[in-house]
């Protein structure tokens, strides 16, 4: 209701502003260095105004909405001498080219050779790590793989291509961490469009917010957020890649955009993943007829794990118009097919059960800076008409040898089903940002989401028509003060409203929660940054947590919202021993006190996972990263994360009565089970330029992933030996890759080896991930930088 009003308000504002649009000018600039190469990430500012911009990869910037008149333009970037220039703005558009001189003195003493947009994000008050996705374009990584290399982040997958994933961020996992694409919550995108099937090439960079999430990413995220910034770097470009590799894995991506001089634009992202996922697993197998082999461990191939998805995102609209910087109508179309090899544990093996899903999601994206003076408006909306279906019609039991045995009871493999459903989810996301002055701004954001699952099963006479509905609105207000390169701070409040109708209660349950927080950063020197934040935050149960995913996640309609007090403190420092040896380091300390901590546990039969609450959990964690570069051909880094999650629920609940026991829990003070708590990542890349041509480049890369062993169940219970207690063993995975780029990156060919030592890798108990795999990746990229 409330959000509808806000939406209406926004629309009214929008309308009134259109009618009063003024004739303003824009300034386009091209920044080069002394060698004539474009300079990205330079800051262009019109002094004594709030106007400014940062140059893109092509060294271009645009500053819009300038009133005609005389100004001073300043161009600055670390490593270059700052230039100021007098400009006269008249007419519709002014263009200029500026050459920056190298600041040799600065070069000697300053550590970073220029911030890319990714690094720029890192300088915000929030604790952000930005992954520069462009560096990974010649790999076959998906977004989940890329995120897995960030300190504090652990992506747990349940198998190969397309398998379920769960991302944990500084000890928070599941829906505490929310995903956004260009600031739009991805909550309702369905199975066809998720970070485990979106290729990295879709993104320009990926921002990882640890702890406090800025207000403009309006949501009830509690532990952090991932924001995927898609590429609109180029107005006209084609980026196409195809890879083929082990387990019959094919992946293709095409990204393209065409923009006319008049601002009419068409953007297309299309991608496809296909894999048989028939890698070998080491599993306790037994003959389905006789029980022979008795669960002794053998290597057998996965035989029912094919996955493929095909997705197309098309946007059409206008850019750089007086009424809109961007107005895009788009649609995301996609489908996916997934065979289900196992339950939540590899003990239950399936041979015919599968699921299908599709996404049909129209969307609207509108953005206009200075709609009114100093007021920026963003409006996004989408609605997913997609359908999901769970197909379990074969009455048989399978064993790991692929043998099947008829069930004879007319059931399915787990539960006979042709259940087909729509989640009917939609989202409206509105953001207003008002700059009070050059260094102060207020942001108001509102996100409204709706979910209403409806489905039928043609195999059933009695349909499950119990309501499965939830609506949520998150309203946020924030204020930030920023003195560039000295300090900045933000305070904010969030009001969350959720209304849920479930079969269990069959009544409407309404929850209202208020949260607030503060985040700040201070630059001791230009290269030594301190960050701290505190937040009281609430996160509501997500639709999938309340209603389940019909496959291996069971819904919990009684899940309570989690409330948490989060404290983060961190520091980042960049330094150089000399001009050749440069270092960058950062570290974050995290303390969290959570009530009704939501964690994922196995259900009664250990066949599905179900979200549940713990009364109290405390988290203490540190994570850090060190990067080193030598000249411009060697780059190496290590991230390390340690987090201790402690159960502080004093009394357990008697499952038969629902009442608390009166004696202290045996698990009080125990470490939370089934959560990775010590892990790290090391990468080394060597780039050799001018191999086989001056515009060619050869890169060798190595990546090591380490995850310390952790117990599946409470650590204090049972004999702590791997023979008698279920453990997710220590994992060590080595990935290598070679990339050869020709013609300044127009043609790229890469060979990738993943898990080359063929280690047994498990993120979830007994759910083994792929062994050694090799992938060949071909990529073609072309862009036209001038309009």
């Amino acid at each position, binding site marked *: 209701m409330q959000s509808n009003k806000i939406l209406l308000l926004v629309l009214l504002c929008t309308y009134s502003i259109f009618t009063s649009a003024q004739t303003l000018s824009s300034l386009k600039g091209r920044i080069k260095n002394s060698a004539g190469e474009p300079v990205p990430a330079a800051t262009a500012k019109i002094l004594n105004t709030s106007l400014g911009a940062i140059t893109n990869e092509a060294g271009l910037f645009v500053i819009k909405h300038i009133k005609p008149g005389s100004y001073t333009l300043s161009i600055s970037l670390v490593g270059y001498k700052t230039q100021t220039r007098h400009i006269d703005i008249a007419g519709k558009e002014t263009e200029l080219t500026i050459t920056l001189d190298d600041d040799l003195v600065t070069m000697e003493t300053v550590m970073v050779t220029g911030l890319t947009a990714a690094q720029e994000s890192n300088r915000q008050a929030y604790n952000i790590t930005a992954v520069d996705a462009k560096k990974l374009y010649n790999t076959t990584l998906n977004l989940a793989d890329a995120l897995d290399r960030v300190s504090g982040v652990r992506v747990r997958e349940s198998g190969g291509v397309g398998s379920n994933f769960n991302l944990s961020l500084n000890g928070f996992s599941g829906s505490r961490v929310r995903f956004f694409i260009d600031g739009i919550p991805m909550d309702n995108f369905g199975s066809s469009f998720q970070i485990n099937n979106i290729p990295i090439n879709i993104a320009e960079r990926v921002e990882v917010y640890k702890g406090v999430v800025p207000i403009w990413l309006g949501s009830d995220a509690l532990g952090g957020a991932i924001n995927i910034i898609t590429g609109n770097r180029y107005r006209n470009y084609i980026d196409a890649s195809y890879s083929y590799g082990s387990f019959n894995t094919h992946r293709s991506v095409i990204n393209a955009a065409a923009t006319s001089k008049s601002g009419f634009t068409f953007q297309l992202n299309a991608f496809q993943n296909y894999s048989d996922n028939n890698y070998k697993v080491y599993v306790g197998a*037994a003959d*389905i*007829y*006789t*029980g*022979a082999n008795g*669960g002794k461990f053998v290597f057998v191939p996965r035989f029912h794990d094919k996955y493929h998805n095909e997705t197309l995102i098309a946007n059409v609209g206008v850019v750089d118009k007086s009424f809109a910087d961007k107005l895009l109508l788009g649609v995301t179309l996609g489908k996916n097919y997934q065979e289900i090899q196992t339950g939540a544990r590899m*003990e*239950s093996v399936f041979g015919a059960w599968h699921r299908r899903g599709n996404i049909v999601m129209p969307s609207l994206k509108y953005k206009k800076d200075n709609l009114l003076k100093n007021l920026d408006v963003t409006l996004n909306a989408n609605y997913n008409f997609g359908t999901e279906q769970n197909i379990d019609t074969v009455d048989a*039991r399978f*064993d790991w040898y692929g043998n099947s045995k008829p*069930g*004879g*009871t*007319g059931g399915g493999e*787990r*539960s006979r089903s042709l259940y087909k459903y729509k989640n009917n989810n939609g989202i409206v996301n509105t953001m207003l940002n008002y700059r009070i002055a050059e260094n102060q701004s207020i942001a108001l954001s509102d996100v409204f989401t709706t979910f209403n699952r409806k489905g039928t099963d043609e195999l059933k006479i009695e349909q499950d028509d119990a309501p499965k509905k939830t609506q949520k609105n998150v309203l946020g207000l924030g204020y930030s003060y920023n003195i560039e390169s000295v300090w900045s701070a933000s305070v904010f409040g969030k009001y969350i409203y959720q209304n849920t109708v479930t079969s269990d209660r069959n009544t409407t349950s309404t929850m209202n929660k208020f949260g607030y927080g503060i985040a700040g950063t201070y630059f001791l020197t230009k290269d030594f940054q301190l960050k701290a934040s505190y937040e009281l935050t609430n996160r509501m149960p997500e639709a999938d947590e309340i209603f389940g995913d019909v496959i291996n996640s069971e819904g919990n309609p009684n899940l309570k919202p989690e409330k948490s007090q989060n404290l983060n403190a961190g520091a980042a*420092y960049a330094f150089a021993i000399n001009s050749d040896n440069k*270092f960058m*380091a950062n*570290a974050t*300390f995290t303390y969290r006190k959570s009530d009704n901590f939501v964690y994922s*546990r*196995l*259900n*009664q*039969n*250990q*066949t599905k996972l*179900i979200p*549940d609450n713990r009364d109290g959990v405390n988290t*203490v964690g*540190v994570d*850090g990263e*060190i990067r080193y570069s030598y000249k411009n051909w060697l780059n190496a880094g290590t991230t390390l994360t*340690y987090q*201790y999650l*402690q159960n502080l*629920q004093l009394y*357990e609940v*008697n*499952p*038969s009565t629902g009442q608390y*026991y*009166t*004696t202290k*829990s*045996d*698990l009080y*003070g*125990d470490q939370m089970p089934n959560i990775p708590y010590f892990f790290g990542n090391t990468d080394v890349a060597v780039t050799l330029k001018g191999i086989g041509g001056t515009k060619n480049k050869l890169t060798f890369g190595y990546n090591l992933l380490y995850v310390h062993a952790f117990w599946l*169940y*409470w650590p*204090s*219970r*049972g*004999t*702590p030996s791997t023979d008698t*207690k*279920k453990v997710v063993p220590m994992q060590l995975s080595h990935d290598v890759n070679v990339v050869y780029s020709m013609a300044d990156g127009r043609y790229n060919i890469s060979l990738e080896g993943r898990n080359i030592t063929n280690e047994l890798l498990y993120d979830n108990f007994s759910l083994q991930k792929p062994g050694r795999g090799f992938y060949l990746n071909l990529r073609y990229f072309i862009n036209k930088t001038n309009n």
Partner: protein
Amino acid sequence: MKIKFTLAAAVVAVALASCAKKENSEAVPEDPGNFIVTVTPTASTGVADYLLTASSLDTGRISTAGNGVEQDGTYRYYVTHNNKFFSMLYGQGNPGAVTAYNIVDGKLNKLTNFQTETVQAFAPVNDDLLLFKISRNVATPNSLWYKVNTNSLLITSEGSTNTLELTGTGELAHFSWLKQVGDKVYAPYFSIIDRTFATNHPNNAWIAVFNYADMSLNKIITDDRTSFIGRYFTDGLAVTENNDVYAFSSSVAVKDGTFNSTKPSAITRIKAGTTEFDQSYFFNFEEATGGMNITNWLYVGNNTFIVNATTKTEKGAYTVGSNVGIVNVVDKTYKPVTGLPAKATIAGLTTNNYTPKDGKTAYVGVNLTDASSWVYKIDASTATATKGLKVEGGVITAIQHLD
């Protein structure tokens, strides 16, 4: 310098974390032995039992803290046969599993683990375990059986029986349990309309008699003096030393959520060598106890049973009675057991208990509302219970013994 900072932060965090670690209550050492006590940790919904060994049930202390073999699956049921301990996973709609152990030097040693269907009844027959997956749906009336050889630890044969045709009433027969009697398998059943377990036939007892060799149906024994024999997942038959078969009825048939049997909870008999209820024998348990009904029993030998019972107000189709007494089926006597904790403090009694079958002794798990658990030794000859082994860190779900 930066590295130092990172290290310092790490040290601080580790220090904080270790400060926060639980104050260790003195650890209870492992207790190797030939008794197996299975324990479900109090706190752990969705977590399986731990199998603990104990050298004695009469004294001592064992704990799941740092001890025990972790099991898979919350619903585990246990049976001992051929000197092996079988842990059966009840997977509801999902596959079940059979995990077998023996004891070597006082420690459990895993022998096999293989998938089966989830079964609702299983019992030793000859050298086998007979497993039954029982239908609850008239549209799919085949109930499946499996024979697991306890020497080879393999499924040696399987088949099905139509449990709808078995009744001839349009309701399904749901075996409460299975019992070997000679070369036959007696399968007492309750009649169900569907998965709600409601019935229109609350006033009859039935036992399906199978020839074990081929599992063909031999005959159905009926009795109209009681309601059905046994209960869901409960063994309602016992064979005494002279091969008489005794049966109890709880009288807990239901329809529309209410008990609909007019028959009392009672004990009946099938004389050795016959396959009919002995109409001359009837022990009206309700009458003998002032209105209680039997929920479970344990045959300790010499015509003597340890009986769990509920009062009229406590009565429930799945409730395990906390009133414990001694029944002599020949004498038709009932004597309450003294020495157990007050009923109000009992959270639950274990139903899978151990007896050396000496005619008087049973070891019964007692789980108290203060979350402590004990093994009590019951002496049927004196009808007294004495506190024995203390079990920490969970609820006792079974007490077994291997040689």
